């Protein structure tokens, strides 16, 4: 006879989880030397690091020529990176051929942009609406007149003279702020029940997505003038802006569509059953959820756009990378074994800083917006 009857006499109170072992030794044992194979791999890894780190350190810092150095030092044997070259050509890398006495104008644009964008990106700062209006509508106009001049006694400065980081930032900021809403509209259009709108959106997306950015820019610079009336030219920068924006919009549309498809049908139906109109449903219910799902994809597109700005050399713009390349090729007074390498490394570092910043910000936003799904 087995007795399977059981009645609990008293309930067990919840108690805190047992303490975890901590400390450097425990950590190393668990993560580095858990098994003999782990130990061997750890030792091999350490040897690899010891082999690879010193030369890198020596090139970047140890044997490098600092910003105050001279070209003679850069030409010495065993010299590392030639930071003096970067320091000396910094103005060209940032402003391109922009007249040196007028460089306070881009500086104001940079400062204004930072002053408007940073609070916009920080959730806790108030006056978001005013801030957004200033950044999206007032700032571009002010910046344009400030940079281009020709009004209020400012010396005219054609866009051919703009260059370097200035152009890279202009194209990416404009590209990002325009392609995002255009991409959303295209994604919604692609899901539309209206056949004409749907076909147009699909056609645009599939056409643009199937062509390399280089050829979009090339078309913008070669084909567009053919359709224009005789004598009418379109600004190079504008062509680059249009090309980059349209290109990214198509990608953005597909990313957003992915997010839209992840939203259960019930969400559309609940919104509809409450009497909300199509646009209200999209704005209040669907898009906030859909965009949240695809933040990584959106930022991916933004990062790609930021790096793709370097392709605008096709239409003759000197963005950061092209400015560096130009100096590498022409600054004979700085010629040394490592000059070009240093120039490209500098460009890479600048690109990396901006892209990494976007990536970190997107992770932060993902965490912040996670509330609704926590269970």
């Amino acid at each position, binding site marked *: 006879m087995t007795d399977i009857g059981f009645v609990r006499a008293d309930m067990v109170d919840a108690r805190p989880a047992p303490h975890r072992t901590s400390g450097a030794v425990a950590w190393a044992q668990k993560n580095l030397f858990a098994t003999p194979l782990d130990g061997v791999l750890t030792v091999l890894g350490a040897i690899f690091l010891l082999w690879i780190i010193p030369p890198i350190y020596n090139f970047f810092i140890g044997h490098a020529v600092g910003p105050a150095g001279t070209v003679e030092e850069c030409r010495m044997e065993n010299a590392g990176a030639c930071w003096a070259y970067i320091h000396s050509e910094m103005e060209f890398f940032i402003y391109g051929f922009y007249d040196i006495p007028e460089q306070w104008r881009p500086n104001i644009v940079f400062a204004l942009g930072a002053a408007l964008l940073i609070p916009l990106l920080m959730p806790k700062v108030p006056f978001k609406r005013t801030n957004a209006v200033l950044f999206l509508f007032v700032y571009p106009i002010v910046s344009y007149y400030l940079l281009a001049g020709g009004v209020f006694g400012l010396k005219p400065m054609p866009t051919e003279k703009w260059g370097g980081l200035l152009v890279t930032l202009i194209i990416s900021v404009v590209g990002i702020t325009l392609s995002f809403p255009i991409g959303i509209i295209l994604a919604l259009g692609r899901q539309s029940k209206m056949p004409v709108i749907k076909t147009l959106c699909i056609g645009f997306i599939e056409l643009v997505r199937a062509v390399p950015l280089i050829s979009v820019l090339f078309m913008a610079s070669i084909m567009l003038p053919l359709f224009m009336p005789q004598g009418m030219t379109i600004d190079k920068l504008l062509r680059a802006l249009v090309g980059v924006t349209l290109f990214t919009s198509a990608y953005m549309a597909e990313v957003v569509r992915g997010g839209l498809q992840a939203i259960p049908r019930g969400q559309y139906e*609940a919104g509809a059953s409450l009497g909300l109109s199509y646009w209200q449903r999209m704005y209040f219910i669907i898009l906030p959820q859909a965009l949240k799902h695809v933040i990584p994809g959106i930022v991916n597109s933004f990062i790609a756009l930021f790096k793709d700005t370097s392709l605008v050399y096709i239409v003759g713009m000197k963005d950061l990378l092209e400015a560096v390349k130009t100096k590498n090729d022409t600054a004979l007074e700085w010629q040394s074994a490592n000059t070009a390498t240093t120039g490209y490394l500098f460009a890479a570092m600048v690109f990396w800083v901006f892209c990494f910043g976007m990536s970190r910000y997107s992770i932060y936003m993902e965490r912040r917006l996670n509330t609704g799904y926590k269970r």
Partner: protein
Amino acid sequence: MSQVSETTVDRPVDTSHMQVSSTNVAIEVIGMHKWYSDFHVLRDINLKVMEGERIVIAGPSGSGKSTLIRCINRLEEHQEGQIIVNGTELTADLKRIDEVRREVGMVFQHFNLFPHLTILQNLTLAPIWVRGIPKAEAEETAMHYLERVKIPEQALKFPGQLSGGQQQRVAIARSLCMQPRIMLFDEPTSALDPEMVKEVLEVMISLAEDGMTMICVTHEMGFARQVANRVIFMDQGQIIEQNEPEAFFSNPQHERTKLFLSQILH
């Protein structure tokens, strides 16, 4: 999904306000047909719902119950016949559809709360943007209905933090905030744990006691007995039989109804 329960609420249902209007028609469906591509899902539906009626629609799964009530607020489009809600006929005219939807609340099997909004925001979104009610007033109404479904303390939480039963009560409150004239329930208790069915039914009964016009697709036969004034039985996209609950359960006429009832009532 098609499990049937007989959960009842252990209190007498107050029928003093449950009056069926003899003149005012809330919903009229005339000779309605619907197809899902080639599948004839609703066939020759004729239904007249008077104001104050509490109708339970029962039937096996796939019989078209849900599709029928989803046609009433045009979540599904019908291809033939007429559907007239509060005197407005449903056509492709978007304006009329929104007009009807404003007056017809719907509660879904899976609640469909907006997960990115707080409970209070879920409740005030439509009143503010569809009815144009000032935010403060909308929030006051929302709190009133949250109290009515007995969860005012959850107002600032997100849907994901609530139990299924609480979420469904919020969903009911969300519909009520639009002050609809008709409420549609699409299997409101089917996705709930057994212990939570009762709290939702309690809310539905109290709504009925206030005289709300209700159409409920449900497997809760206890609820049908206690509250409904009419039970409709559907199979294969058609209305097979309808009657007062007493007669429906004790004396079904159609063979299919008898079979259905014999399988679900023990």
